[in-house]
């Protein structure tokens, strides 16, 4: 007891004593005087309570009391308490987890100085649907020179036809290592404002000299690779073997430094083959630029539009220059967007969809808990009424309710954040590349604040709900009639409304999840143009410095020959780009007797496919030849070179003509040959999806390297086999080691895994949404069950009388079931309307299914109805079992 409380007690006691003394002095008996004085003062406890409340400073003490009281009431009801806390933890947990992703990926600024100044420049070909492409080297140089808006414009490149494929072989100690690489110029590093942790960055001289056949042998390492592969020992100035060539390590990057979420481990100087550097048709450079201080993105965009009006005049050519009005398939425009937008890209919409979905889950959770609380408030009504009679003010009771709710929300919130942390970790571990910027994800302050806000909001909601319509409204009647009389009608309507809302939310979530599951199913089943069953693939890269194209061809040939003789292997081929997830080449290719719409004698070919083991290629891959023939071993001996095109190529170039016998001239530098020679088309292959199954096939040219006896550094080997990849891995490792011990075997897996990888993002989205929908559905079912059980309990007497008067038990059963279905039907109707209203949100995430798909809707309605039936069954059965004798005796 505090000093203030003691003083108050003394003060009141003194008052009573004086009053009694005075009355006794007037001649009243002590007993009478005491009674009269007390009556005069009123309810002493209440007077004290109200007086105490005048001192707001007491709140802490009162809070302690409330907390103690709450703990006592939790301990009395451990089941109820743990259900509430667990439900809250789930609701807050999923929200915190998804918000961690939404904040970390979409909202948190990039880890560069002044990140809002960074812009990403891409080439867009709206006619062909090829968006966010790289720029050609001449375009990059021209833009660097023309622009006035940018303080610095830089370029990088990760793969394609230039130096590397985005990965390099690196010798750390005595084992070869495969590391992710990027090639950057000095301008890019300046634009990003990255400072090296040790050593120096590349100089302009080192990254702009595109002569000779090889880039300068220097490199920088990421902080992480330097720690893990080299133990953090002093490395600057020393030589490390990269791609079989000693490279001097000039610097170590700071921890976390990266470009475009590339997970870069090795930084190399940007270098292009001189031929490619001149080609306007070769889109190979990705451009990042930093705005000058005070220049807005809008201003830069306006400036870019002006350039696009007459880029050709500036470049001195009409051939393949960017324009404001791309009308033909060969035309392209340039577009600026913020770097953050570019990194987040297609992940933005799925993440917001998930955020909305967990929002709905939280609503369902709240509705469920509100329902629980209403039921509990009814049973606690007596307690509250009693406490009010004993002197607790209404505000005090409300505070007590809110304290209890806040404690449960708090516990739920803490558990939820813990769940979210574990969930996000597990998610990143399971799907490291499905979400951009995962390396930066963490539960940080904004996430905690959101979790706290959610906890407080839910606490307030429960506090008010659990107090119901207020114990002071009809205190006397409540005391008399007890819990049984709890004003059924209104309370019941509120509970029904909550269940309807729950069902509606669940319907929307289940529809979303079902549509995405259909999408994944469609993507999985989609015919990418080749037979992917029983294919095993791996890739290897031969050190660039250690051999000529001819030597590389011999190495690959030996690997293929040896693998072909392994028992259980039916066919073995190698190819430069592995469908269905390779990057495009977009190489300008001269075509005989051909004039394009804009008067050129060449055409941009989206994909070059260089194949080895050509005699087997189409058979092994299971790609049908629709006209002419495939490659044959005899082609290799003949003088004339041959090529095969796909159906899209024919449609694009030789509309209506016979493609067989036409000639094309692929540039020799693209595959390591010295000269450009004419190739005669001998066959047409069915289209194969090269860059994602949901993207249209592009024009493709197959060239057999067996004819040329050269090979590019990197190839993908594909085996058709009766064996699983695990059974083959030992053999493959041994074969490759025997041929060249310095070459690692990477990405060994079956083609089904390659496909799974290509649809990982929609699949992750579908799985998460499915889990949330399942959760919502379960909660809605519990809500339906709860409200019906409550109805049955409340109407036991009425049901008993009806049964006593001769109502059939089956009638009672159907009546309760009907009630359950009515609530469900209303919820379904509202949910369907809601789903139709927001289906635009997910339309762009779907593949092969309309957002209004009738089959999906029917399936969802059937599912929800079934769940509702199951949830109504038990209460209905209980109602039909009511024994009139027992009920009437209770009265």
């Amino acid at each position, binding site marked *: 007891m505090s000093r203030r409380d003691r003083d108050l007690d003394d003060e009141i006691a003194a008052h009573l004593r004086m009053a009694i003394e005075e009355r006794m002095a007037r001649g009243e008996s002590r007993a009478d005087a005491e009674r009269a004085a007390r009556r005069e003062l009123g309810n002493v406890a209440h*007077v004290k309570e109200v007086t105490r409340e005048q001192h707001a400073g007491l709140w802490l003490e009162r809070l302690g009391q409330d907390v103690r009281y709450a703990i006592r009431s939790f301990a009395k009801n451990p089941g109820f308490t743990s259900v509430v806390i667990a439900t809250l933890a789930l609701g807050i947990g999923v929200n915190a987890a998804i918000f961690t992703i939404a904040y970390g990926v979409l909202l948190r600024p990039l880890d560069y100085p002044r990140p809002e100044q960074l812009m990403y420049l891409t080439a867009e070909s709206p006619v062909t649907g090829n968006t966010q492409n790289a720029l050609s080297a001449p375009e990059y140089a021209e833009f660097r020179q023309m622009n006035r808006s940018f303080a610095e414009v830089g370029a990088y490149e990760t793969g394609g036809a230039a130096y590397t494929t985005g990965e390099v072989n690196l010798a750390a100690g005595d084992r070869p290592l495969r590391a992710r690489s990027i090639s950057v110029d000095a301008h890019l590093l300046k634009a990003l404002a990255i400072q090296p942790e040790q050593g120096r960055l590349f100089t302009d001289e080192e990254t702009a000299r595109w002569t000779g056949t090889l880039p300068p042998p220097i490199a920088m390492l990421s902080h992480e690779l330097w720690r893990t592969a080299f133990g953090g020992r002093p490395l600057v100035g020393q030589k490390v073997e990269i791609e079989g060539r000693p490279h001097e390590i000039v610097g170590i990057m700071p921890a976390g430094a990266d470009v475009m979420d590339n997970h870069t481990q090795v930084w190399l100087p940007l270098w292009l083959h001189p031929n490619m550097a001149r080609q306007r048709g070769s889109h190979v450079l990705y451009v990042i630029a930093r705005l000058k201080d005070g220049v807005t993105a809008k201003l830069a965009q306006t400036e870019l539009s002006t350039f696009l009006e007459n880029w050709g005049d500036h470049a001195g050519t009409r051939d393949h220059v960017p324009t404001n009005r791309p009308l033909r398939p060969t035309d392209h425009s340039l577009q600026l967007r913020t770097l953050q937008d570019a990194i987040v890209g297609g992940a933005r919409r799925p993440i917001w969809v998930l955020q909305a979905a967990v929002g709905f889950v939280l609503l369902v959770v709240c509705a469920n808990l509100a329902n629980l609380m209403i039921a509990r408030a009814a049973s606690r009504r007596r307690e509250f009424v009693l406490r009010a009679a004993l002197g607790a*003010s209404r505000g005090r009771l409300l505070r007590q309710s809110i304290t209890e709710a806040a404690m449960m929300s708090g516990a739920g919130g803490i558990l939820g954040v813990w769940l979210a942390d574990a969930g996000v970790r597990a998610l990143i571990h399971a799907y490291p590349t499905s979400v951009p910027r995962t390396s930066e994800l963490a539960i940080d302050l904004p996430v905690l604040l959101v979790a706290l806000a959610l906890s407080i909001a839910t606490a307030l909601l429960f506090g008010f709900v659990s107090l119901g319509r207020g114990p002071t409204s009809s205190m006397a009647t409540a005391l008399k009639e007890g819990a049984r009389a709890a004003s059924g009608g209104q309370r019941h309507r509120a509970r029904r409304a909550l269940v309807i809302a729950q069902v509606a939310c669940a319907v929307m979530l289940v529809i979303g999840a079902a549509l995405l599951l259909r999408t994944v199913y469609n993507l999985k089943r989609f015919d990418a143009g080749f037979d992917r069953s029983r294919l095993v693939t791996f890739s290897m890269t031969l050190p660039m410095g250690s051999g000529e194209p001819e030597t590389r061809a011999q190495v690959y040939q030996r690997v293929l020959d040896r693998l072909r003789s392994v028992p259980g292997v039916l066919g073995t081929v190698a190819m430069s780009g592995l469908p269905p997830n390779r990057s495009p080449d977009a190489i300008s290719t001269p075509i005989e007797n051909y004039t394009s719409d804009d008067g050129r004698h060449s055409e941009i070919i989206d994909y070059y496919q260089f194949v080895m083991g050509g005699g087997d290629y189409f058979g092994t891959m299971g790609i049908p030849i629709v006209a002419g023939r495939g490659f044959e071993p005899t082609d290799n001996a003949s003088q004339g070179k041959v090529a095969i095109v796909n159906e899209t190529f024919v449609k694009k170039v030789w509309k209506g003509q016979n493609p067989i016998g036409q000639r094309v001239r692929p540039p020799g530098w693209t595959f390591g040959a010295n000269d450009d020679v004419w190739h005669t088309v001998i066959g047409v292959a069915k289209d194969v999806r090269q860059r994602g199954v949901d993207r249209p096939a592009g024009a493709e040219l197959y060239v057999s390297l067996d004819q040329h006896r050269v090979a590019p550094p990197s190839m993908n080997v594909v085996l058709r086999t009766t064996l699983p990849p695990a059974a083959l891995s030992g053999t493959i490792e041994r074969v490759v080691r025997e041929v060249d011990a310095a070459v690692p075997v990477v990405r060994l897996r079956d083609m089904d895994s390659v496909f799974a990888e290509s649809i990982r993002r929609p699949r992750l989205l579908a799985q998460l949404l499915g889990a949330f929908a399942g959760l919502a559905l379960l909660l809605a079912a519990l809500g339906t069950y709860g409200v019906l059980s409550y109805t049955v309990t409340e109407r036991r007497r009425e049901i008993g009388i009806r049964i006593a008067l001769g109502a059939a038990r089956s009638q009672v059963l159907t009546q309760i079931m009907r009630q359950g279905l009515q609530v469900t039907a209303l919820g379904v109707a509202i949910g369907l309307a809601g789903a139709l209203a927001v289906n635009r949100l997910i339309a762009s995430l779907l593949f092969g299914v309309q957002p209004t798909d009738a089959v999906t809707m029917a399936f969802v309605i059937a599912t929800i109805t079934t769940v509702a039936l199951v949830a109504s069954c038990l209460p209905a059965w209980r109602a039909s079992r009511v024994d009139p004798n027992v009920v009437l005796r209770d009265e």
Partner: protein
Amino acid sequence: MPQRGLSRIELLQGTLDLIILQTLRWGPRHGYGIAQIIRSTSSETFQIETGSLYPALHRLERAKLIASSWDTSDKGQRVKNYELTAAGKKQLQAERSRWEQLASTMATLLNTPLGADS
């Protein structure tokens, strides 16, 4: 019933405060003394429950309009005395003139015949 007392406090809050301040004008008094004066001078016109007095006293003390001190009464009992502070005296002046203005306005209003303006 406790509720009636509670609502009475709310109803008379401003008035009761004014009465208490007025009572303390002539010097310090304890709670029981204040209650006696109010009862005797208002001659039962105001049915102020003694119970509402203490919350009002503590509220005024918290607002620093009155100050309290523990004292020993002539009978040797420990009692809590309240007295006006400077702010309390000022408040009393302001409240009085406000109250008088209200009273005279009400009187005028009630004494004006209906429709006298038109």
